[in-house]
């Protein structure tokens, strides 16, 4: 299981253990959490919609690309779907490698590619009672190249 979508809470410690290896001196883990604000608005909860058939296929490709590009031994990513509350873990990326540079680079590559390529959408529910799909206007303007801006 290199990439998966889960409708249950992510077991961070258990997931991390899946990539540990005696040959690896470095483990890099990225966790994406639900925060209480976005672009000046108070967020109460968040809902992820995922189209699994394509997300799972593309997600596996991203992991394979990372394994081919960087000198890493193991990599995996799990992304949540459904309704998530503040403080919940929405996504985890775990990478192990002999040395830290490759592990950091691969982890960054996987989360960046996952955010821009996978058919996953989030609807934010605000304290005002309003809810909206989150779209990055900068991405729309730049044709989703992400060339001149970064996501938080």
């Amino acid at each position, binding site marked *: 299981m290199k990439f998966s979508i889960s409708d249950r809470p992510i077991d961070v410690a258990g997931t991390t253990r899946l990539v540990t290896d005696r040959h690896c001196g470095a483990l890099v883990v990225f966790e994406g959490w639900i925060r209480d604000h976005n672009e000046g608005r108070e967020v109460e909860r968040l809902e992820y919609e995922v189209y699994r058939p394509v997300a799972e296929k593309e997600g596996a490709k991203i992991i394979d690309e990372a394994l081919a590009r960087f000198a890493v031994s193991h990599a995996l990513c799990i992304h949540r779907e459904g309704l998530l509350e503040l403080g919940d873990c929405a996504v985890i990326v775990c990478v192990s490698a002999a040395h830290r540079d490759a592990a950091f680079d691969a982890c960054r590559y996987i989360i960046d590619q996952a955010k821009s390529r996978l058919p996953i959408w989030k609807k934010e529910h605000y304290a005002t009672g309003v809810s909206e799909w989150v*779209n990055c206007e900068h991405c729309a303007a730049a044709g*989703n190249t992400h060339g001149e801006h970064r996501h938080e």
Partner: protein
Amino acid sequence: MKIQVRYFALFREQAGCDAETVNWSGGTAADLFQTMAAKHPTLQTQAAALVAINDEMSSWETRLHEDDEVLFFPPVAGG
């Protein structure tokens, strides 16, 4: 030709349905989106939108074939 169209997230809300079958004169995925936007005036093109055909990520310039299933993805926002 007969094409199955599916909408996701924002596009589903704009189109007012999650799927429909259309009889269409043919062309690219981008052409099909324009046809569907004309049918559903609230459905709006977005530069960062993505398209998949038969569950494979694809290009807007891909020409469609009879019985293709076309998936219109609004700008994605995982993570």
